[in-house]
């Protein structure tokens, strides 16, 4: 006769064959984690340095003053973003003498961390905005000038512009809906 008691079903389920690793392995894993973080920092720095080098190359190549200003602003913004990302990757150590948080505290903390990261994402990327606007404005002006002699350029660029517009409209809506849901969850936890 089969047993339908959920507690029995749960406690008698077949165990997964997992070789529970010993402490020395964990020490190695902790070291690997630190190494991985260092690599992430190095990779981030490399990408930004490559970007800044590319911006520098464009800066030297162009003779247009507006473009040069935009590129300089983008490079400055990129440096600021690197600095911000470094700060986020190496958070200040927290006091670890207390017992682990309760499930409620840990869940609330994770939700708040997610919420803060979402809000900070825009603040982190904001320094890139002025430079991007100046460079984009300069590019758009060049495209319009070229389109006056060859209108096909505008038709070819239309799909990209439509996709960009849809993305720009949809992204804030989706983001706002997610933030609202997490906020509701936080409020429910607080009550």
């Amino acid at each position, binding site marked *: 006769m*089969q047993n*339908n*008691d*959920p*507690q029995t*079903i*749960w*406690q*008698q*389920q*077949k*165990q*997964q064959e*997992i070789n*529970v*690793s*010993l*402490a020395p392995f*964990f020490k190695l*894993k*902790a070291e690997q984690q630190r190494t991985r973080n260092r690599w992430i920092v190095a990779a981030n720095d490399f990408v930004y340095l490559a970007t800044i080098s590319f911006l520098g190359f464009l800066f030297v190549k162009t003779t247009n003053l507006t473009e040069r200003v935009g590129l300089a602003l983008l490079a400055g913004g990129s440096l600021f973003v690197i600095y911000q990302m470094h700060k986020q990757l190496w958070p200040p150590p927290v006091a*670890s*003498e*207390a*017992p*682990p*948080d*309760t*499930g*409620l*505290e*840990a*869940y609330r903390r*994770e*939700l708040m*961390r*997610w919420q803060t990261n979402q809000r900070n994402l825009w603040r982190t990327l904001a320094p890139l905005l002025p430079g991007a606007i100046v460079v984009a404005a300069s590019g758009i002006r060049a495209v319009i000038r070229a389109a006056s002699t060859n209108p096909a350029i505008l038709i070819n660029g239309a799909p990209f512009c439509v996709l960009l517009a849809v993305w720009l409209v949809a992204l804030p809506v989706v983001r706002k*809906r*997610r933030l609202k*849901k*997490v906020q509701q*969850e936080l409020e429910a*936890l607080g009550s």
Partner: protein
Amino acid sequence: MSVTASNVASQDDLYQDAAAQFGPALDRLARAYEFDPEKRRDLLQEIHFALWRSFATYDNRCSLRTWIYRVAHNTATTQVVRQRRIYSTLVSLDELDQIASENHSDSVLASERLALLIQKLKPLDRQVIVSYLEGLDAAATGEITGLSPSNVAMKIHRIKNVLSRRFHSGATHAE
């Protein structure tokens, strides 16, 4: 990690004891969060790693069981939130009862159906249901989750109702 020499031995010993005593329970806990065997294996290893790391500061201020369950649930909850599952399809216990029971084939084991049901829940409700299934009382569950005993009792009452409808009335589905 700054662990003193005398600390290291006790940290390792505590971990060995905890793994021996609560290993099967931690395995089941991982099933409540991950269905995919590979992801579950990774989560279980993360839990064990978090546990070993946490024992560097274990000071008997709460029971070993509470400590272990808190660390394990917190590790798994962090994974749920970071994988952005929180704003997708997870439901509360109240909502769970309104979701139509899925028609599983006979080949789906009762334990798997149970795990799938738990994985639909939001992290805090998941912690309560896992504690209940592990046979912990309301006081112990409250200590782990930080919920008041009355809140835990209310949630357990709902859990029992849901489980009784899904597993006793649906006995034909069990293996």
